[in-house]
């Protein structure tokens, strides 16, 4: 069955270091992937997305990497700041579908 999951439930990094959050997916029909940030008590906030015809996309301080061979997605956050502390979710969508399928989430904690 389809599933999207994360390797690590928690990640703790030093302020200023780079963070890498990983995600595995199992649905070969997935053609769109997206990362959301969720702060406590708030809704998911869009960070960056990528289509399956790409393997890398960069934004401001964030990079998403897609490896379709091993069905792996990662989010890299450069120079992590205290405001980056949140739960990060990956989600995927199959071609022709409307729904996003979310992973379990990784809690990112920034140490001063």
């Amino acid at each position, binding site marked *: 069955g389809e599933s999207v999951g994360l390797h690590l439930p928690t990640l703790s990094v030093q302020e200023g270091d780079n963070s890498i959050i990983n995600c595995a997916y199992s649905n070969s029909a997935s053609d769109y992937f997206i990362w959301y940030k969720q702060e406590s008590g708030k*809704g998911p906030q869009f960070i960056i997305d990528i*289509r399956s015809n790409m393997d890398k996309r960069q934004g401001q301080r964030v990079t998403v990497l897609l490896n379709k061979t091993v069905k792996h997605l990662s989010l890299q956050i450069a120079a992590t700041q205290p405001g980056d502390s949140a739960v990060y979710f990956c989600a995927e969508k199959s071609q022709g579908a*409307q729904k996003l399928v*979310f992973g379990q989430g990784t809690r990112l904690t920034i140490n001063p």
Partner: protein
Amino acid sequence: EPEVTQTPSHQVTQMGQEVILRCVPISNHLYFYWYRQILGQKVEFLVSFYNNEISEKSEIFDDQFSVERPDGSNFTLKIRSTKLEDSAMYFCASRGGVGETQYFGPGTRLLVL
């Protein structure tokens, strides 16, 4: 910057009662969604809505649930007879006609007693 808004932010209700959760999607967006998140768990898809009809729904979205776009700006989720297990955060999302990005609202926390 335009954003999805939801009301109320919190709703407490008795089991068996009807609740209506309201959303105002981003203006000129065409696709509308409801998701829910039980405390500590991942976000789950409920339903998508396009062109005044449901385009996709999950197994969770049974006959107790319904959605409506009563006017040009609101999008509502009705739970006809709430159960204890309906307690969750309910998120509305919308997206435009071009692009896949779904933008989420702040959510309504529903507590069924």
